[in-house]
């Protein structure tokens, strides 16, 4: 492969586009507000959205496997209130946190069994559990909620090192590395992609489809639990049954803007992380400029739409034939299929109609 091809391949990657967007939005924000480029601001701008990012990491696995889990925000609520009730009952705060994670994973397992074993559609299943888990959260803890936790515990999700470096940011980056390795460098990760690309083919090639699908939902639950018990509680200092309400849109935005294909089979943790940074940066810049909240939503919504449209255009180009030599925009499967059909892999012809 020549270096030109390599460069082309890089430029065609979604993550590269996100990086460019981050730099662009940063430049725009700096002109919007003189406070944007301050070190403390740059370090802190992702912090309020760390819990969103953690949920989005878990959800990315589910979506790459070709499913959806919209119950994640309710899972967060249940894990948070279970944790709070245990702490109130006098259980050691770390044990209670562990139990909260257990509860979250169990709720994910519930979704996983319904989708992976009973083969029910995940949108319907998790729409149901979105409501059911939310109700459960109110059953476990209704009213004003709990806000007294040991200060040492709250540091994990809300502390700062040297008054500037937010600990939750480190949690986010650390988990991004762990989950990135899990998704991109393990057999399990490969299975997730394979199932998302073509579930039947995966089954015939010996992938333990049911087990992997159940596992991704457990992972999604666990991540919602970590986001809730450690980061949400730590950063906001509040455990209530309505924790996470109104946040689903942001979670899905991070996943879709992160380049995860909603039809499965494509995506990366790095993309989700970069998308989270982009959204956080954009909101931060607009807030520092005191742009009205509704206008901010319009901008974020527009960005999401633009991402979906351009993502689909790129994919259409990959699958359909808009082939630019050296850009390597096409999916490997398509190239392989073309090779079988006798189409030259790296033609000099620029365009081809149809698939």
């Amino acid at each position, binding site marked *: *492969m020549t270096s030109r091809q*390599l460069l082309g*391949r*890089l430029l065609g*990657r979604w*993550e*590269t586009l996100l*990086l460019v967007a981050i730099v662009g939005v940063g430049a725009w924000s700096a002109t919007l*507000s003189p*406070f944007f*480029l*301050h*070190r*403390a*601001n*740059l*370090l*802190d701008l992702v*912090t*309020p959205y760390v819990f969103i990012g953690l949920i989005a990491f878990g959800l990315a696995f589910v979506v790459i496997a070709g499913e959806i889990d919209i119950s994640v925000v309710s899972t967060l609520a249940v894990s948070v209130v279970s944790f709070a009730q245990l702490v109130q009952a006098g259980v050691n705060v770390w044990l209670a946190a562990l139990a909260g994670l257990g509860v979250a994973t169990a709720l994910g397992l519930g979704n996983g069994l319904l989708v992976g074993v009973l083969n029910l559609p995940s949108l319907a299943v998790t729409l149901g559990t979105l409501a059911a888990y939310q109700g459960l959260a*109110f059953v476990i803890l*209704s*009213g*004003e*909620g709990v*806000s007294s936790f040991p200060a040492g515990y*709250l540091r994990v999700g*809300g502390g700062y090192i040297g008054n*500037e470096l937010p600990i939750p940011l480190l949690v986010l980056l650390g988990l991004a590395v762990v989950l990135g390795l899990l998704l991109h460098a393990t057999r399990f990760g490969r299975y997730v992609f394979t199932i998302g690309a073509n579930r039947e083919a995966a089954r015939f090639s010996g992938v333990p489809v049911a087990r992997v699908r159940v596992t991704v939902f457990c992972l999604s639950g666990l991540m919602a639990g970590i986001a809730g018990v450690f980061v*949400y509680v730590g*950063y*906001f*200092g*509040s455990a*209530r*049954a*309505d*924790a996470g*309400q*109104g*946040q689903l849109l942001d979670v899905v935005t991070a996943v879709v803007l992160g380049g995860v294909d909603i039809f499965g089979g494509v995506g990366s943790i*790095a993309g989700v992380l970069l998308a989270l940074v982009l959204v956080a940066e954009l*909101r*931060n810049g607009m*807030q*520092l400029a*005191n*742009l*009205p*909240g*509704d206008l901010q*939503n319009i901008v974020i919504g527009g960005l999401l739409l633009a991402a979906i449209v351009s993502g689909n255009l790129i994919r259409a180009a990959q699958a359909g034939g808009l082939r630019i030599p050296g850009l*390597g925009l096409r999916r490997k499967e398509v190239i392989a299929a073309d090779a079988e059909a006798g189409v030259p892999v790296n033609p000099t012809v620029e365009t081809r109609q149809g698939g």
Partner: protein
Amino acid sequence: MKGKRLLVLLSLVAIAALAAGLAAGVGSAGESRANPTGKSYKIFFLPKFIGIGVFTENGKGGKEAGKELGDTVVYNGPTEPVGAKQVPFIESAVRQGFDAIVISAPDANAVAPALLRARARGVKVVSYDGDVRPDAREIFVSPPLASDIGAFQVEWLGSQIGYKGEFAILSATPTAANQNTWIKWMKVALKKPKYRNMKLVKIAYGNDKPVDSARETQALLQAYPNLKGIIAPTTVGISAAAQVLSQEGACGKVALTGLGLPNEMRKFVKKGCARKFGLWNERDFGYLAVYVAHHVLDGTITGKIGETFKAGRLGTRQVVNCAGVKPCVVLGKPLVFTPQNIDKFNF
């Protein structure tokens, strides 16, 4: 695979560049302090959420006060009443060097850590309408006392239904602190002999959303055929309930009262769907909150019970203890709207 490795490399370079940028950052932000000598302050006015009449009106009052005092008042907030979504606005206000934050919180606790960080940097915090955790603010500006708001609404309903029959409450969310306090005081008022024939059958929650509130109202009408009245202590709830009563032809059969905005309720008042309801002057509320913030900043208000200060056209006000919530400044008594007086109000 090589491409991927190069991508990783490129990302690393980008991150390193970013980090270098960070290290070379122009300086640290948020070194704001209330200027003890100057008379002009920057005040950030943060409602529960923007886009509804009440908060818009609060904001107008706040800006009016700012104009009189020579202060800069910026009004902004999230579009949903979610505490977690207020936090970035608090952080942003601190970074921009605002001297004070005036806040109405949907979740008293979720904003507390951010407000504590703000206070640690010298920013003064005044809560109004929806209070925050007491250690996270200097002072609370209270709407008419919760005991008055609770008792007045029971009386407004009672006087419409002859102090007899079943009624329900249509609230916002089960976690809304102000709603729960008012409901508690309604229950206290109901213990008076005058109201002994009025029976509270259900507290429904419409989440401060029109659609949910309308659905809950319909459910109440179906579940309780003998329902004589509804108290909706939320402006979103009462207008949704009025709409449903009007559509179902139940105006006059089921009395409606609560807290509503004159502009939203005017047509229902004229139709007889809500003949008596109340609120307080929302513009005065925001106006008073900014006056309090200003006087906290200039040192007139330190938080001692009994201190007095001048609040522009609202006259001299006093720092008091509001039924355990202290220090506190009270707006006044509730206002009642009837077909006779509603046209005098425009908010």
